Protein backbone atom coordinates (compact mmCIF):
# COMPACT_ATOMS: atom_id res chain seq x y z
CA UNK A 1 0.00 0.00 0.00
CA UNK A 2 1.10 3.52 -0.79
CA UNK A 3 2.24 5.20 2.47
CA UNK A 4 1.71 8.64 0.89
CA UNK A 5 -2.03 7.99 1.16
CA UNK A 6 -1.98 9.33 4.70
CA UNK A 7 -3.72 12.69 4.84
CA UNK A 8 -5.37 12.28 1.44
CA UNK A 9 -8.87 13.75 1.21
CA UNK A 10 -11.16 12.28 -1.44
CA UNK A 11 -13.93 13.97 -3.42
CA UNK A 12 -17.24 14.47 -1.66
CA UNK A 13 -19.69 11.72 -2.70
CA UNK A 14 -22.92 12.35 -4.62
CA UNK A 15 -25.92 13.01 -2.33
CA UNK A 16 -27.60 9.90 -0.91
CA UNK A 17 -31.31 10.35 -0.19
CA UNK A 18 -32.29 8.23 2.81
CA UNK A 19 -35.58 6.47 2.13
CA UNK A 20 -38.11 5.12 4.62
CA UNK A 21 -38.20 1.69 3.06
CA UNK A 22 -34.40 1.50 3.04
CA UNK A 23 -34.40 2.25 6.77
CA UNK A 24 -37.06 -0.43 7.37
CA UNK A 25 -35.11 -2.92 5.26
CA UNK A 26 -31.81 -2.20 7.02
CA UNK A 27 -33.42 -2.18 10.48
CA UNK A 28 -35.01 -5.58 9.83
CA UNK A 29 -31.66 -6.93 8.63
CA UNK A 30 -29.94 -5.95 11.91
CA UNK A 31 -32.78 -7.43 14.00
CA UNK A 32 -34.03 -4.09 15.29
CA UNK A 33 -37.12 -4.14 17.49
CA UNK A 34 -37.36 -0.37 17.79
CA UNK A 35 -40.64 1.16 16.60
CA UNK A 36 -38.65 4.30 15.72
CA UNK A 37 -37.11 2.35 12.81
CA UNK A 38 -40.45 1.12 11.43
CA UNK A 39 -43.35 3.27 12.55
CA UNK A 40 -43.44 6.89 11.35
CA UNK A 41 -46.01 7.88 13.98
CA UNK A 42 -43.83 6.48 16.76
CA UNK A 43 -40.80 8.35 15.40
CA UNK A 44 -42.73 11.64 15.16
CA UNK A 45 -44.16 11.13 18.66
CA UNK A 46 -40.59 10.73 19.93
CA UNK A 47 -39.63 14.07 18.37
CA UNK A 48 -38.07 12.96 15.07
CA UNK A 49 -39.11 14.33 11.67
CA UNK A 50 -39.42 10.82 10.17
CA UNK A 51 -38.21 7.22 10.60
CA UNK A 52 -34.90 6.90 12.44
CA UNK A 53 -32.10 4.75 11.01
CA UNK A 54 -30.15 2.28 13.20
CA UNK A 55 -26.75 3.55 14.45
CA UNK A 56 -24.77 1.52 11.92
CA UNK A 57 -26.78 2.71 8.89
CA UNK A 58 -24.02 5.21 8.16
CA UNK A 59 -22.06 2.31 6.65
CA UNK A 60 -24.33 2.51 3.58
CA UNK A 61 -23.13 6.07 2.91
CA UNK A 62 -19.57 5.32 4.01
CA UNK A 63 -19.47 2.49 1.48
CA UNK A 64 -19.36 5.00 -1.38
CA UNK A 65 -16.25 6.60 0.07
CA UNK A 66 -14.49 3.29 0.68
CA UNK A 67 -15.19 2.39 -2.95
CA UNK A 68 -13.30 5.56 -3.95
CA UNK A 69 -10.35 4.56 -1.77
CA UNK A 70 -10.23 0.97 -3.00
CA UNK A 71 -10.63 1.96 -6.65
CA UNK A 72 -7.85 4.55 -6.56
CA UNK A 73 -4.97 3.10 -8.60
CA UNK A 74 -2.41 5.15 -6.65
CA UNK A 75 -3.61 3.64 -3.33
CA UNK A 76 -2.38 0.18 -4.26
CA UNK A 77 -4.94 -1.70 -2.17
CA UNK A 78 -5.66 -5.28 -3.28
CA UNK A 79 -9.36 -5.67 -2.43
CA UNK A 80 -9.15 -9.47 -2.37
CA UNK A 81 -6.77 -9.20 0.60
CA UNK A 82 -8.79 -6.67 2.58
CA UNK A 83 -10.18 -7.60 6.00
CA UNK A 84 -12.32 -5.26 8.09
CA UNK A 85 -10.33 -4.63 11.28
CA UNK A 86 -12.47 -2.21 13.22
CA UNK A 87 -15.32 0.21 12.82
CA UNK A 88 -16.60 3.23 14.67
CA UNK A 89 -19.45 5.71 14.35
CA UNK A 90 -19.25 9.05 16.12
CA UNK A 91 -22.57 10.79 15.75
CA UNK A 92 -24.03 14.23 16.25
CA UNK A 93 -27.56 12.96 15.59
CA UNK A 94 -29.25 9.84 14.21
CA UNK A 95 -29.82 9.60 10.46
CA UNK A 96 -33.50 10.03 9.58
CA UNK A 97 -35.58 9.37 6.46
CA UNK A 98 -35.44 12.33 4.11
CA UNK A 99 -31.84 13.15 4.91
CA UNK A 100 -29.73 13.94 1.88
CA UNK A 101 -26.25 12.88 2.90
CA UNK A 102 -22.82 13.36 1.40
CA UNK A 103 -19.56 11.95 2.68
CA UNK A 104 -15.94 12.94 2.49
CA UNK A 105 -13.21 10.41 3.22
CA UNK A 106 -9.90 11.38 4.77
CA UNK A 107 -7.12 8.83 5.14
CA UNK A 108 -6.24 9.22 8.82
CA UNK A 109 -3.33 6.80 8.92
CA UNK A 110 -1.41 4.14 7.04
CA UNK A 111 0.59 1.67 9.11
CA UNK A 112 2.58 -1.48 8.64
CA UNK A 113 2.16 -4.26 11.17
CA UNK A 114 4.10 -7.41 10.56
CA UNK A 115 3.52 -8.25 6.92
CA UNK A 116 0.19 -6.45 6.88
CA UNK A 117 -0.82 -2.91 6.02
CA UNK A 118 -3.50 -1.06 7.91
CA UNK A 119 -5.34 1.94 6.58
CA UNK A 120 -7.66 3.95 8.80
CA UNK A 121 -10.17 6.17 7.05
CA UNK A 122 -12.59 8.72 8.43
CA UNK A 123 -15.70 9.44 6.37
CA UNK A 124 -17.44 12.57 7.55
CA UNK A 125 -21.13 12.44 6.68
CA UNK A 126 -23.06 15.71 6.50
CA UNK A 127 -26.66 16.63 5.64
CA UNK A 128 -27.97 18.94 2.91
CA UNK A 129 -27.25 22.01 5.07
CA UNK A 130 -23.66 20.85 5.55
CA UNK A 131 -24.24 20.05 9.23
CA UNK A 132 -22.38 17.05 10.63
CA UNK A 133 -24.46 13.92 11.17
CA UNK A 134 -21.99 11.09 11.80
CA UNK A 135 -18.38 10.19 11.11
CA UNK A 136 -17.72 6.60 10.11
CA UNK A 137 -14.21 5.39 10.90
CA UNK A 138 -12.85 2.14 9.51
CA UNK A 139 -9.59 0.32 9.72
CA UNK A 140 -9.01 -1.99 6.80
CA UNK A 141 -6.27 -4.58 7.10
CA UNK A 142 -4.60 -5.59 3.87
CA UNK A 143 -3.00 -9.00 4.35
CA UNK A 144 0.57 -9.25 3.14
CA UNK A 145 1.93 -11.75 0.65
CA UNK A 146 1.97 -15.29 1.98
Amino acid at each position, binding site marked *: MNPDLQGRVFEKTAPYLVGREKIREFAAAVFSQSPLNFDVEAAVAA*GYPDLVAPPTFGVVIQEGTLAQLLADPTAGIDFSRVVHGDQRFTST*RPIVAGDELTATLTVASVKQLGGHSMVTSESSIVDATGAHVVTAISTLVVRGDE
Partner: protein
Amino acid sequence: MSADSSTSAHGTPAASAPDFAGLAVGDVVAERSFTLTRDSLVRYAGASGDFNPIHYRDDVAVSVGLDGVLAHGMLTMGLAVQPVLDWLGDPSLVDDYQVRFTRPVFVGPETGALLEVSATVGQLDAAAGTARIDLTATGNAQTVLGKAQVRVHSPAPATPSASALSAATATPAASA
Protein backbone atom coordinates in the same frame (compact mmCIF):
# COMPACT_ATOMS: atom_id res chain seq x y z
CA MET B 1 -39.36 -10.94 11.12
CA SER B 2 -38.83 -10.15 14.74
CA ALA B 3 -39.33 -6.48 13.96
CA ASP B 4 -42.99 -6.31 13.08
CA SER B 5 -45.76 -3.84 13.76
CA SER B 6 -46.46 -5.41 17.16
CA THR B 7 -43.36 -3.66 18.51
CA SER B 8 -45.20 -0.35 18.31
CA ALA B 9 -47.29 -1.60 21.21
CA HIS B 10 -44.37 -0.59 23.44
CA GLY B 11 -45.62 2.98 23.16
CA THR B 12 -43.44 6.07 23.33
CA PRO B 13 -39.86 4.83 23.68
CA ALA B 14 -38.69 7.95 25.53
CA ALA B 15 -41.03 7.06 28.38
CA SER B 16 -38.92 3.99 29.13
CA ALA B 17 -35.55 5.80 29.02
CA PRO B 18 -33.40 4.47 31.86
CA ASP B 19 -32.36 6.48 34.88
CA PHE B 20 -28.54 6.63 34.93
CA ALA B 21 -28.56 7.56 38.62
CA GLY B 22 -29.50 4.00 39.46
CA LEU B 23 -26.62 2.49 37.49
CA ALA B 24 -23.35 1.07 38.76
CA VAL B 25 -20.26 -0.09 36.90
CA GLY B 26 -20.64 -3.80 36.22
CA ASP B 27 -24.42 -3.75 35.93
CA VAL B 28 -25.77 -5.81 33.05
CA VAL B 29 -28.28 -3.51 31.36
CA ALA B 30 -29.36 -5.72 28.47
CA GLU B 31 -28.92 -9.17 26.97
CA ARG B 32 -30.21 -10.72 23.80
CA SER B 33 -29.42 -13.71 21.63
CA PHE B 34 -29.77 -13.93 17.86
CA THR B 35 -29.97 -16.88 15.53
CA LEU B 36 -28.23 -16.12 12.25
CA THR B 37 -29.03 -18.16 9.17
CA ARG B 38 -27.84 -17.90 5.57
CA ASP B 39 -31.10 -16.02 4.96
CA SER B 40 -29.98 -13.41 7.51
CA LEU B 41 -26.77 -12.87 5.57
CA VAL B 42 -28.52 -12.50 2.22
CA ARG B 43 -30.97 -10.07 3.81
CA TYR B 44 -28.11 -8.00 5.26
CA ALA B 45 -26.23 -8.09 1.95
CA GLY B 46 -29.24 -6.60 0.19
CA ALA B 47 -29.97 -4.04 2.88
CA SER B 48 -26.39 -2.83 3.20
CA GLY B 49 -25.19 -3.23 -0.38
CA ASP B 50 -22.27 -5.42 0.72
CA PHE B 51 -22.39 -8.26 -1.80
CA ASN B 52 -19.01 -9.81 -1.05
CA PRO B 53 -19.67 -13.48 -1.98
CA ILE B 54 -17.77 -14.80 1.06
CA HIS B 55 -21.03 -14.01 2.89
CA TYR B 56 -23.20 -16.35 0.82
CA ARG B 57 -21.03 -18.71 -1.29
CA ASP B 58 -19.10 -21.54 0.35
CA ASP B 59 -16.96 -22.16 -2.73
CA VAL B 60 -15.75 -18.56 -2.78
CA ALA B 61 -15.20 -18.51 1.00
CA VAL B 62 -13.13 -21.71 0.82
CA SER B 63 -11.15 -20.42 -2.17
CA VAL B 64 -9.86 -17.50 -0.07
CA GLY B 65 -8.86 -19.77 2.80
CA LEU B 66 -11.91 -19.54 5.04
CA ASP B 67 -13.67 -22.51 6.64
CA GLY B 68 -16.93 -21.43 5.04
CA VAL B 69 -19.42 -18.61 4.71
CA LEU B 70 -19.17 -16.02 7.47
CA ALA B 71 -21.42 -13.22 8.68
CA HIS B 72 -20.63 -9.65 7.64
CA GLY B 73 -18.74 -7.98 10.47
CA MET B 74 -21.09 -5.05 10.05
CA LEU B 75 -24.08 -7.34 10.59
CA THR B 76 -22.61 -8.49 13.89
CA MET B 77 -21.88 -4.85 14.80
CA GLY B 78 -25.36 -3.79 13.74
CA LEU B 79 -27.21 -6.35 15.80
CA ALA B 80 -24.92 -6.24 18.85
CA VAL B 81 -26.05 -2.69 19.67
CA GLN B 82 -29.75 -3.55 19.43
CA PRO B 83 -30.19 -4.65 23.08
CA VAL B 84 -28.63 -1.33 24.15
CA LEU B 85 -31.07 0.58 21.95
CA ASP B 86 -33.98 -1.38 23.40
CA TRP B 87 -32.76 -0.46 26.87
CA LEU B 88 -32.22 3.23 26.00
CA GLY B 89 -35.44 3.67 24.05
CA ASP B 90 -34.04 6.64 22.13
CA PRO B 91 -31.21 6.21 19.57
CA SER B 92 -30.20 9.87 19.86
CA LEU B 93 -28.70 8.99 23.27
CA VAL B 94 -25.92 7.06 21.48
CA ASP B 95 -22.93 9.32 20.85
CA ASP B 96 -20.35 6.80 19.73
CA TYR B 97 -20.22 3.11 18.91
CA GLN B 98 -17.09 1.15 18.10
CA VAL B 99 -16.01 -2.47 17.70
CA ARG B 100 -13.03 -4.53 16.66
CA PHE B 101 -13.67 -7.59 14.57
CA THR B 102 -11.62 -10.25 16.31
CA ARG B 103 -13.03 -13.54 15.04
CA PRO B 104 -15.27 -14.50 12.11
CA VAL B 105 -18.77 -15.83 12.76
CA PHE B 106 -19.22 -18.88 10.56
CA VAL B 107 -22.81 -19.49 9.56
CA GLY B 108 -23.50 -23.08 8.58
CA PRO B 109 -26.07 -23.71 5.81
CA GLU B 110 -28.21 -25.84 8.10
CA THR B 111 -26.98 -25.06 11.60
CA GLY B 112 -26.71 -21.27 11.28
CA ALA B 113 -24.96 -19.51 14.14
CA LEU B 114 -25.96 -18.44 17.62
CA LEU B 115 -24.87 -14.93 18.59
CA GLU B 116 -25.21 -13.87 22.20
CA VAL B 117 -24.81 -10.28 23.32
CA SER B 118 -24.47 -8.93 26.82
CA ALA B 119 -24.26 -5.20 27.61
CA THR B 120 -22.58 -4.07 30.82
CA VAL B 121 -21.88 -0.64 32.32
CA GLY B 122 -18.13 -0.19 31.81
CA GLN B 123 -17.75 3.40 32.93
CA LEU B 124 -20.03 5.98 34.48
CA ASP B 125 -19.78 9.76 34.81
CA ALA B 126 -22.73 10.82 36.92
CA ALA B 127 -21.89 14.53 36.73
CA ALA B 128 -21.68 14.56 32.95
CA GLY B 129 -24.62 12.15 32.61
CA THR B 130 -22.65 9.83 30.38
CA ALA B 131 -21.87 6.12 30.42
CA ARG B 132 -19.82 3.66 28.46
CA ILE B 133 -21.65 0.42 27.82
CA ASP B 134 -19.38 -2.52 27.04
CA LEU B 135 -20.67 -5.28 24.81
CA THR B 136 -19.68 -8.91 24.97
CA ALA B 137 -20.58 -10.74 21.81
CA THR B 138 -20.07 -14.45 21.33
CA GLY B 139 -20.68 -16.41 18.16
CA ASN B 140 -21.06 -20.14 18.64
CA ALA B 141 -19.67 -19.60 22.17
CA GLN B 142 -16.49 -17.76 21.10
CA THR B 143 -15.86 -14.04 21.52
CA VAL B 144 -16.19 -12.31 18.15
CA LEU B 145 -15.91 -8.60 18.98
CA GLY B 146 -13.22 -6.75 20.91
CA LYS B 147 -13.38 -3.29 22.47
CA ALA B 148 -17.08 -3.16 21.66
CA GLN B 149 -18.16 0.04 23.35
CA VAL B 150 -21.25 2.23 23.15
CA ARG B 151 -20.93 5.74 24.57
CA VAL B 152 -24.30 7.07 25.63
CA HIS B 153 -25.66 10.07 27.45
CA SER B 154 -28.48 10.21 29.92
CA PRO B 155 -31.89 11.55 28.92
CA ALA B 156 -32.83 12.29 32.52
CA PRO B 157 -31.09 15.58 33.46
CA ALA B 158 -31.94 17.55 30.31
CA THR B 159 -35.72 17.32 30.27
CA PRO B 160 -36.62 17.84 33.97
CA SER B 161 -34.09 20.64 34.51
CA ALA B 162 -35.22 22.37 31.31
CA SER B 163 -38.86 22.22 32.37
CA ALA B 164 -37.95 23.30 35.91
CA LEU B 165 -36.08 26.26 34.44
CA SER B 166 -38.98 27.32 32.25
CA ALA B 167 -41.34 26.93 35.22
CA ALA B 168 -39.06 29.12 37.35
CA THR B 169 -38.91 31.89 34.74
CA ALA B 170 -42.61 31.59 33.99
CA THR B 171 -43.70 32.10 37.60
CA PRO B 172 -42.39 35.65 38.17
CA ALA B 173 -43.67 36.71 34.77
CA ALA B 174 -47.10 35.35 35.60
CA SER B 175 -47.21 37.07 39.01
CA ALA B 176 -45.94 40.39 37.63
